């Protein structure tokens, strides 16, 4: 799925956010909760107000996991294996839509907001494919 060029572009983009991981994570989640209120159903135990510590903490976790995926693009299945188990057996978030569409869309918006023109169609395409690949691995063990 991901060509060598795609992998390079994803790594490049990730370089650019490496200083702002917490911000990117928090903003992605905030946008997701605002645009897709149904995603809040998975966080009844969270304070979902703007700037909440829980959102920042969780956003940081999500971005760190994606960062791990970026470092292991040739071996996503193994790198995300534990997370895959977690999502399949514990979290059980709706597999086709949550990570690939809703979270991915919001991550892309955050990247576009920060990179502007530098969020080229080629990068957009590579990130979209990357998020699809991540979602596929996370959904592997659902049934």
């Amino acid at each position, binding site marked *: 799925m991901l060509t060598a060029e795609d992998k390079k572009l994803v790594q490049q983009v990730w370089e650019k956010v490496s200083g702002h991981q917490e911000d990117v994570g928090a*903003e992605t989640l*905030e*946008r997701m909760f*605002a*645009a*897709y209120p149904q995603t809040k159903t998975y966080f009844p135990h969270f304070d979902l107000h703007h700037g909440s510590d829980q959102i920042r903490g969780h956003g940081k976790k999500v971005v760190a996991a994606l960062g791990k995926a970026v470092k292991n693009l040739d071996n996503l299945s193994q790198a995300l294996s534990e997370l895959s188990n977690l999502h399949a057996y514990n979290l059980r978030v709706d597999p086709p839509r949550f990570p690939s*569409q809703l979270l991915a*869309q*919001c991550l*892309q*918006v*955050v990247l*576009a*907001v*920060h*990179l*502007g*023109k530098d*969020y080229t*169609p*080629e990068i*957009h*395409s590579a990130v*979209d494919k990357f998020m699809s690949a991540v979602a596929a691995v996370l959904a592997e063990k659902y049934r």
Partner: protein
Amino acid sequence: MVHWSAEEKQLISSVWGKVNVEECGAEALARLLIVYPWTQRFFDNFGNLSSPTAIIGNPKVRAHGKKVLTSFGDAIKNLENLKATYSKLSELHCEKLHVDPENFRLLGDILIIVLAAHFGKDFTPSCQATWQKLVGVVAHALAHKYH
């Protein structure tokens, strides 16, 4: 009937007021064809779509992108009456163009990313939420006459 709050209407019109329909439309359609290459199936007669550069520079893509986004502008003028506004277009997309409505959702999401890239921080989470709602409702109206 979809309800639009005063704030939502404001967020829609303030963004739309600053959109260059030709540029944004061209970019959104180009990105659709680049990021989801299977959508090229609807544009066999558009000529060279062989690379991102070719797609971005393709005059037919630009012209069609402008057409699509101009039509979007009609939706914005008729927020209270979208299904009627898009009735004929919906029939067209079903009966003549044979476009799977899933593609409307894809284009809507891409348009949002294009807006985010253009407006940067001004494209706040509330802005995005309102526009995600808008593109969803437009997609729904376009699919409404399918049979």
